[in-house]
């Protein structure tokens, strides 16, 4: 398997554990991630509120480069995925917008590629291939798989999993030997960039999600998005401060937990740079 890989702007900043664990796990699975040369920002959570055209053109620039590479695209960040998948859909379906966009990006994009989230890319690897790599099963670990909103919605654009009750990450966690819990808030919104612009609103959303996970008996979260990670890992202490709670539940990227089960070291996976202490869970899985 070979993919044109879109790292996303947080890859060496707030989401750097996601990047290192993604690379390590891809290697184990024989998945080749070829970074799209000189990729640019997808417009993240801002361009959709500025202009429909800008919102398609920004991700389309990177898609045009990927088309020349001749490989389907994958990205770990759910927000980038949403942007790339949306632009991909528009460029393939809407000739009017395709023509306009192709006038203003350097390499035209004809809409011939598939855009997959990393969850889909890893989740469609033959389960036997994954199982063959599991050397330290996460026996006894109870995880709440949190998908957030942008990974599985809107279904017309994402389509690989159920928009209300997704299972891809749960299945991966089961393969890794963990117990994936059935819980209520798998796709509730964490507030995304409201965590930067309006923390008072965001903490209320984050609180609901953490509360549901804790009540279902989870030892930790497993996520697939640097925004979700930042909101639940970093802002957990702000939820505690502002709402008087005392949560202390670690948040892992799905690639980190898969990596642990594959015998990769916590250092290699970046497990030491979380804000919520991961030690508790690490000692649980030995």
């Amino acid at each position, binding site marked *: 398997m070979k993919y044109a890989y879109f790292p996303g702007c947080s890859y060496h900043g707030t989401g750097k554990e996601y990047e290192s664990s993604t690379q390590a796990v891809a290697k184990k699975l024989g998945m080749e991630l070829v970074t799209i040369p000189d990729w640019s920002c997808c417009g993240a959570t801002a361009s959709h509120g500025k202009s429909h055209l800008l919102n398609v053109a920004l991700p389309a*620039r990177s898609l045009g480069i990927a088309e020349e590479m001749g490989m389907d695209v994958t990205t770990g960040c759910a927000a980038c995925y949403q942007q790339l998948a949306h632009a991909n859909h528009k460029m393939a379906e809407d000739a009017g917008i395709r023509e306009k966009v192709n006038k203003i990006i350097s390499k035209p994009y004809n809409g011939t590629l598939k855009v997959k989230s990393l969850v889909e890319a890893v989740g469609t690897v033959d389960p036997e291939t994954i199982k063959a790599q599991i050397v330290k099963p996460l026996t006894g670990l109870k995880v709440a798989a949190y998908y957030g909103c942008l990974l599985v919605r809107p279904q017309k654009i994402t389509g690989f999993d159920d928009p209300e009750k997704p299972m891809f990450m749960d299945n991966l966690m089961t393969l890794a030997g963990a117990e994936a819990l059935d819980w209520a808030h798998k796709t509730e919104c964490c507030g995304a960039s409201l965590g930067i612009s309006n923390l008072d609103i965001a903490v209320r959303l984050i609180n*609901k999600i953490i509360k549901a996970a804790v009540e279902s008996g989870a030892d930790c979260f497993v996520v697939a998005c640097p925004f979700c990670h930042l909101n639940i890992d970093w802002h957990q202490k702000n939820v505690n401060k502002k709402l008087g709670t005392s949560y202390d539940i670690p948040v892992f990227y799905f690639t980190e937990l898969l990596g642990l089960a594959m015998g990769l070291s916590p250092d290699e996976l970046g497990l030491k740079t979380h804000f919520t202490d991961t030690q508790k869970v690490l000692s649980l899985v030995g």
Partner: protein
Amino acid sequence: MELIKVNQSIEKNADFIKEVGLESGQPVQKCYQCGKCTAGCPVAFAMDYPPQQVIRMVQLGMKDELLKSNTIWICSTCHTCSTRCPCEVEITHVMDTLRIMAGKSGATPAGKAKYVETMYNALLSTVKSYGRTYEVGLVLQNNLKSGKLFNGADMGMPMFQKGKLQLMPSKIQGAAEVARIFDEVRKMEGGVK
């Protein structure tokens, strides 16, 4: 809210109703006010009009009220409403369309809405300069412009200690191409900074 003569508003703002439909690509007229969108909206509590009411206001042509509302900025575009609407109205796209219209109309959002708009602008201006988002620049600009100077300041040190802060932005080779995208879009549509 002021008293509104509904018939007059529909007539006066017929163009607006049409434009929202066209730009968003959504069959807004189909909404029969079941309320499912509002029931599932995670941020309805902070909005001046919940999503169901926004759709009704579009049907009624209440342009000024909508373009001034904080709802269109606070909506986190989570697509929960769009996923659940029995009439297949993708409300999220309507919200985006209204936000874009508000931006172009020169409306000046206040309070919570202003913080969102400021964040959008700060993010896009780092993308226009460097071709990528620069997290530090984003937070600094956001704070200067929103007047919340120390917002996120408690974030800086711990992020730095974990090696998650890049002190310098990394500019891509094609940064000028990205800046050109912004300029061309502005030429084609007007209004995009």
